[in-house]
């Protein structure tokens, strides 16, 4: 037998088309990551349509109550069409009812017929691709929607490529080479920030377990992709969708919602000092040094992701104050942009850098001149935390006295 790659049949059948982006909003405003996803979706589908001479759409999906005005905005930011489901029951996000409605929409042929005039929508089964935000809402929503749609999901993605790939896989293809066209390569950084794993969602083409897996879906890290500039010349179609809600979908009631201020305030401080695994030789003492320096500079304190996994033994008071997820800066935590960012004992894994690279002025303290943080800072102080920070504190205090005298 000659092993010429065969192409997957589902692609030829046009059962799966378009890229659906699930939009999040709060109090009538679009969450930034939603526009970032639309921007990336637009770029991908423009290339896709050129390459495959097709006209597949970027479709935003919005659920809510009295937020129809958002739909026009989404078109200006890159959507070809917006499917809008309105109901008082959709005012606030609830996993159960939102999962039901989004899954209904993802399988709805009539919606597709309204925005994709050149395509025989009767053939439509599900979207080809689907994007969600990798935040507190989208992470769970993407999981349950894809469980309902019985397809694959990759989380926390920061790079996307569409390619025609020849795959030879023990289960997927029974070891035979098969061509998977229009495959979404989904790149996710691992927890260390040093490895990139590419996830594919592939139909099973092994005759004994044949099964379609579409949409190819992922959740996207906030702050990674650039939104498009609002373009008022853009036009698109808004499709109103009447959601079908059953009593059993409404089993969860929201009693109240309270806005709280996080104990950690990265947004209103001019300076942030973060520490990483470089504290390791004397964790307790080094954190106290950082605390002292933060006091001098009126800075907030951040940590790297590896430190949040509590690798060191420190006192309970230090532990509960600093070694908490709220302080993580990076793709698994917060994105910050202070005037001054000091990275103490942080190697500079990409996942951290994504969270601080827009800081105005960056100082790194690190004994290893080869660590990647060197390329992400303005001043690289070669040395260990325990040696350098006391010197900085001493100098700050001396200069402060001088300034007092001059006044």
């Amino acid at each position, binding site marked *: 037998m000659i092993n010429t790659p065969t192409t997957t049949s589902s692609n030829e059948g046009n059962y799966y088309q378009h890229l659906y982006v699930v939009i999040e909003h709060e109090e009538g405003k679009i969450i930034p990551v939603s526009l970032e996803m639309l921007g990336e979706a637009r770029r991908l589908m423009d290339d896709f349509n050129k390459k495959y001479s097709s006209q597949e759409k970027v479709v935003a999906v919005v659920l809510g109550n009295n937020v129809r005005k958002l739909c026009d905005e989404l078109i200006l930011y890159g959507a070809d069409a917006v499917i809008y489901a309105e109901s008082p029951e959709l005012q606030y996000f609830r996993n159960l009812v939102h999962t039901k409605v989004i899954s209904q929409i993802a399988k709805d042929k009539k919606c597709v017929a309204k925005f994709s005039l050149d395509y025989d929508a009767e053939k439509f089964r599900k979207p080809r691709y689907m994007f969600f935000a990798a935040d507190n809402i989208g992470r769970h929503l993407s999981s349950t929607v894809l469980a309902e749609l019985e397809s694959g999901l990759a989380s926390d993605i920061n790079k996307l490529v569409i390619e025609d790939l020849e795959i030879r896989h023990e289960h997927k293809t029974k070891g035979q080479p098969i061509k998977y066209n229009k495959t979404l390569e989904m790149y996710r950084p691992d927890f260390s920030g040093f490895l990139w794993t590419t996830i594919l969602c592939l139909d099973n083409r092994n005759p004994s377990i044949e099964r379609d897996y579409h949409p190819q879906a992922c959740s996207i890290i906030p702050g990674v992709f650039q939104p498009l500039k609002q373009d008022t010349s853009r036009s698109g179609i808004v499709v109103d969708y009447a959601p079908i809600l059953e009593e059993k979908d409404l089993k969860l009631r929201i009693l109240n919602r309270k806005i709280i201020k996080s104990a950690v305030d990265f947004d209103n401080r001019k300076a942030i000092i973060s520490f990483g695994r470089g504290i390791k030789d004397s964790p307790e003492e080094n954190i106290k040094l950082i605390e002292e320096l933060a006091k001098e500079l009126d800075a907030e304190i951040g940590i790297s992701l590896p430190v949040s996994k509590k690798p060191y033994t420190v006192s309970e008071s230090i532990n509960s104050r600093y070694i908490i997820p709220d302080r993580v800066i990076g793709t698994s935590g917060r994105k910050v942009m202070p005037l001054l960012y000091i990275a103490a004992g942080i190697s500079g894994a990409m996942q951290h850098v994504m969270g601080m690279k827009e800081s105005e002025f960056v100082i790194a303290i690190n004994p290893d001149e080869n660590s990647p943080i060197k390329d992400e800072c303005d001043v690289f102080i*070669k040395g260990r935390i325990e040696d350098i920070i006391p010197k900085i504190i001493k100098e700050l205090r001396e200069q402060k006295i001088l300034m007092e005298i001059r006044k």
Partner: protein
Amino acid sequence: MDKAGIMNNSLNTAVIVKLEPDFSEGNVSYNADGTLNRAETKSILGPHSAVASSAAFYAKVKYDARVSVGTMGPPIADFALQQAQAICDADELHLYSDRIFAGADTLATAEVLKTGISKMENGKKIDIVFSGHRASDGETGQTGPQTAWKLGYTFLGNVIDYDVDIERRLIRAKRLITLQGFYDIIEEVEAQLPVFITIDPSYKPFFRTILQRLAFVKYKKEAINRAQDYKRYLKIFNAQQLGVDLKFVGLPGSPTIVYKVEKIPKAKASRKAEIVDGSDSEQIRKVVTRIHEVLGGMIIK
């Protein structure tokens, strides 16, 4: 006190846990390039699984709940079950272990866990399932909600506090919602049992009354004793014993594959760093002067 017989007065809970690399200093090992050395790193009950176990223990202390713990993993994953039992005083431990399960993605894992949960407590319905917020190695956070969906349970994510009205079969829970560029929200919700809860890492159980504190001490002691003898509580299931459809588990049941793993290429230097010798006081002085300038000449307090 045995409350059997009054069906509606009892509460059955389950915890889904995972054996994960131990990231604590001395146990974790990194390769020279900064990646995890899995062969040299020990495995323990994941920290988020531990938090989920403590949430189930809260139900044990407060509502006299039954607790079952389940995990999918290799035979050595029974260590995670033992550690979880020491936290939550589990009445039953389930290990779902079969070579066929290896390589499963979250959807195929959820299929196994769903089937396993339906076998807990001799097939009695579990009222609340707890799981951690995410695993510290995989970090997808997908397995919990996907298991919830397959069970047909209402899913509550990022729960930081909960109480149950056993008579009315209702749960009240507080959830923490953080969104990019927005304020944080604490949302209070009420739902009919059964529910599936993922516990937020910031969860801390509080025992307010003396009776609760007494129950806490009693069950904590029992938990330690039981965990020493955990094999008595352990049931191991392979694929056949679970009765899962082989098309839906392991690699055949996984829509996704890992196509490649590569080192993240070094990004182009986004800044040109000035290198400062940390042992030179004069250079440190210049850096501090620079700090003053950057912070807008503000008087440092």
